[in-house]
């Protein structure tokens, strides 16, 4: 009997694998179609739409107060900042000056949101790279921020605390003490984050020089947030176009030149520290006064178009509202940071190993509902 020689070795042939939509490292339902040659990534193609809810379309049938609750469901880790973006746009359109107290509370809440978002990034990024311990440390500290949210807002993650003109309700009497307690606690333990990951040789080996974006590329693709700033692109909306109380505080815009996975991670680490500094400057000076401006129950924006950007934990969220004078907007567009940051993934991952694709994807800190909307 003739035995056919078995052909072994597909090394020179390209083959396609599906990563996701249910892959633990994509943190949601993102499907990446990856073309591989051996272990080397040739091409990455994101397939989106698994959690597309048509938020922009839904907004066209909702009032401005109702839209706030949908924005929570985009980037759920920056829920508070998303709310603020819509509120600021509506307030800008109506030319309402919100009370000072509101500005201070919004800023503090935004920075707490940023801290807990970066904590979760740190936790899951460590887990993506194989260090399960990070997950427990990160979530341990994040709980403390969520407890503060719960006390004042009622919700822990999707808070819907902002409303056009101000806040849903005043802060809890305990708020200032709880925040100061948290800052004291977190300053004491943040070195653990560095001990576990930042200084870890294995971690550095896996993240340095991976997925590099140069400054020119970052600008061309419009990367924002820590992802853009790690490439040296100064794009912090809080600095360039201050809103709420950001013009009253001094803080450092974290910039690095390397633009690799490690520096995207480092940018977030440093941002947590800067956020704590911002809260420090505000927490004792919250002015007394009303927690909301006087608003009509039915909000109708004057005819025209309004655009407002805010800095979420992942980058620039732009809200573009076109109004025809009715109580519902004519068109709402969310320029979501994750959508833009995902676009150059192919460029970043090409030529790296499949395991590094997980690191690169993790370093973008993607939130899929924000991409699909």
């Amino acid at each position: 009997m003739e035995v056919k020689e078995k052909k072994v070795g597909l090394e020179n042939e390209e083959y396609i694998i599906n990563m996701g939509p249910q892959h633990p490292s994509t943190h949601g339902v993102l499907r990446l179609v990856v073309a591989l040659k051996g272990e080397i990534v040739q091409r990455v193609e994101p397939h989106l739409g698994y959690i597309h809810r048509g938020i922009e379309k839904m907004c066209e049938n909702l009032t401005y107060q109702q839209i706030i609750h949908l924005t929570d469901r985009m980037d759920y880790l920056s829920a508070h900042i998303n709310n603020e973006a819509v509120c600021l746009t509506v307030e800008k359109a109506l030319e309402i000056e919100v009370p000072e107290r509101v500005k201070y509370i919004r800023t503090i809440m935004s920075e707490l949101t940023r801290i807990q978002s970066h904590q979760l990034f740190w936790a899951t990024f460590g887990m993506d790279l194989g260090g399960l311990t990070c997950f427990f440390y990160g979530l341990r500290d994040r709980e403390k921020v969520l407890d503060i949210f719960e006390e004042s807002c009622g919700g822990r993650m999707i808070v819907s605390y902002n409303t056009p003109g101000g806040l849903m309700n005043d802060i809890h009497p305990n708020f200032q003490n709880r925040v100061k307690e948290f800052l004291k606690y977190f300053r004491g333990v943040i070195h653990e984050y560095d001990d576990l990951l930042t200084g870890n040789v294995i971690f550095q080996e896996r993240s340095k020089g991976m997925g590099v974006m140069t400054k020119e590329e970052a600008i061309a693709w419009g990367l924002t947030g820590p992802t853009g700033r790690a490439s040296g692109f100064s794009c912090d909306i809080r600095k360039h176009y201050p809103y709420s109380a950001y013009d009253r505080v001094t803080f450092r815009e974290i910039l690095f030149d390397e633009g690799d996975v490690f520096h995207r991670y480092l940018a977030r680490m440093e941002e947590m520290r800067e956020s704590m500094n911002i809260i420090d400057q505000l927490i004792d000076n919250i002015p007394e006064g009303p927690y909301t401006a006087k608003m009509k129950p039915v909000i109708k924006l004057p005819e025209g178009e309004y655009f407002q950007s805010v800095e979420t934990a992942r980058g620039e969220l732009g809200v573009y509202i076109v109004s025809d004078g009715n109580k519902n907007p004519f068109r709402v567009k969310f320029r979501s940071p994750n959508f833009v940051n995902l676009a150059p993934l192919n460029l970043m991952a090409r030529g790296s190993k499949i395991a590094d694709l997980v690191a690169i994807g993790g370093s973008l800190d993607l939130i899929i509902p924000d991409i699909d909307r």
Partner: protein
Amino acid sequence: MMEKSQLCAALTTIVPEAVTVEGKQFAELTVAPQNLRSVIGRLKEDPGLSFDILVCLTGMDYGTDLGVVYHLRSYALNHMAVVKTRISDRENPAIDSICSIYPGAEFHEREVYDLLGIKFNDHPDLRRLFLDSTWGYPLRKDYKDDVNIVLK
């Protein structure tokens, strides 16, 4: 940083084929679809304007016309401008892609194609982004949603 009126004057001299008006927030340019790519190219390249960031690309349905709105920004000179264009052909709307000017426009344009059905000429990879081919174009004002309930 230029004042808005100064910026409008500069825009009028550099891109005379666009109609520049001073909007409530930004300088607003209205461009005919055939001039779009050359206008945006010059806005980016001109050292006095240097709009190097495409912030936002929005597809619009104005009821009769379709349109695309571009928000451009320059961090170096700290100003923003809005470029608007309208397409009157609802059956087969097409416009030039600006991917060659801003590579980041690729996903934005696919999204607009997906949800509004506007085709972008010379786009490197124009496919639907979120929905499959059985859907219509949901962001159009005349879209009939038979399957889902839209609250009114």
